[in-house]
């Protein structure tokens, strides 16, 4: 493969990877945020320790 071919492959790989990962992370990340906020809600300090 010549050096132009390497850069062409890399560019295509970047476009494909970025497109795929964005969609996947968008879906899975939503679930993780919900779980994280639920866990943090349980971990909140009692009323007298709440920040003002």
């Amino acid at each position, binding site marked *: 493969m010549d050096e132009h071919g390497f850069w062409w492959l890399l560019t295509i790989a970047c476009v494909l990877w970025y497109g795929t990962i964005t969609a996947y992370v968008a879906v*899975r*990340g939503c679930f993780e945020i919900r779980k994280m906020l639920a866990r943090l809600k349980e971990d909140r300090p009692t009323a007298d320790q709440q*920040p003002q």
Partner: protein
Amino acid sequence: MTNFNWLVDGSIVGVYLVATMVVGIMVRKYVGKVEHFLVAGREVDVFLGIASLAATEFGVITCMYTAQNGYKYGFAGTTPGILMATAMLFVGVTGFCITPLRHAGVMTIPELFEKRFGPRVRWAAGMVIVLGGLLNMGVFLRITGEFLVLVGGFDVSHLERNVVVMMTVLLLLGTIYTVVGGMLSVLVTDFLQFIVMSFGLLAVTLLILTKIGWSSLAATVAERHGPGGFNPFVCRGMGWQYVLFNALECLAGALTWQTMISRLLAARDARTGRRIYTRTSFFFACRFVLPGIWGIAALTVLAPEALAGLPQTFQGQNSSLYAMPVFLGQFVPVGLMGLLLAAMLAADMSSTSSYMITWASVIYNDILAPLRKTPWSEKRGLRWNRAIVSLIGVFLLFYGLWYPLKGDVYAYLLVTGTIYLASISTMLIACCYWERANSWGATAAIIVGAAIPIACLVFEQVRNMPPDEVQLWRCYSGIVAFAATGAAMVLFSLLKPQTAPPQSTASLEPPVVHSS
């Protein structure tokens, strides 16, 4: 003139900004402790971590310097991205340094150093991290403001006024939700910003590849840069010294760059942290390649005299920085322009907010807190953290206004980053894997690692160097900084008399390893 339309594109940008602010402020109610504010209660899982790390490490400044690399060096300009992806993959797969770091249960790297090298080293390490980090981040706002003025078609005859307005608005927006919600707001808004940013980045790249075409881009690089446009070792302005310095910086950055480490330390456990590293690794190649294509497209489409019409401030040695925004302003159509600007705002806000919270965490945790005999209450600690984030915002505004940037933006970022990357990465490796390492070695590493890059910055300001010379000078001084720091760590550690058996690196392991 640009293709920006206030009704169509302005509305898209407006919707994005309102959504980000609402989401960022809404999660405030979940912040009850300092640990929530600084490391989101260590509840971050893999995909949120990937989105947050990717959004943080891609700002408008990234887009500008990577496009500048593409414009100036062709495809060879994307070399730092390939090196960074390799470094992230290596660290993620092996767990090199990051596994013991996460196991130690600390909130910052200097906190880990206290366990091996004592409280003074922790404090000094905190100081150089903050110094290097803030100087590095100091140029973000101005570059972003300039990008928005050029792409948005604002009046360049009142350039300084418009840039200052942009800088202030951007800073205020990012600061507001960071101050109220800390790392939690940063993570959730990062997620939203990652999605918007990715769509914008992909859409513009695909438009370039379909409208201009790969062959034209490759032909332009071959014509303007010759073989050097495809090979960094023979590229004018790069060469082996550029590749070596970048390889060192990338490995050190993967190990110790505070915004990356904060994701590791906020992760649920070491395994999650490693997976975030491994799965984000290729993103670091993308973040150089895709905007690099924008820079090459600017080289292909713009006539050389197109940059001559820019204001005096944009002329001279750094004019190549502005080729990409000038090109995009004319190339991207109405509608997509709104998505592009929203994407760039998303990129900037996620970086600014993340950087502010991570440097604030070091100032609070490693510089201020150790000075107190009794720890602050959670309530007071939160107030301090919010005040620190606000003060960092003020610093950024003033530094961005007054610092005169010379040479490549990327080279500036490398040098300022080296102020702490050289010493902290050396200390981290020694701390984790060398039992003979001690406080003398650590102190010497901090002094040497900071002194060389600072001297380099001062010297290049005092002596009026031509741009090519500045570039080479920065590479050599960076390589010397890493080598000298490593030598100082080893030499001074060996010089310190051994009064007691050295503390084992095994002491960094927790009694029980948290597994998912």
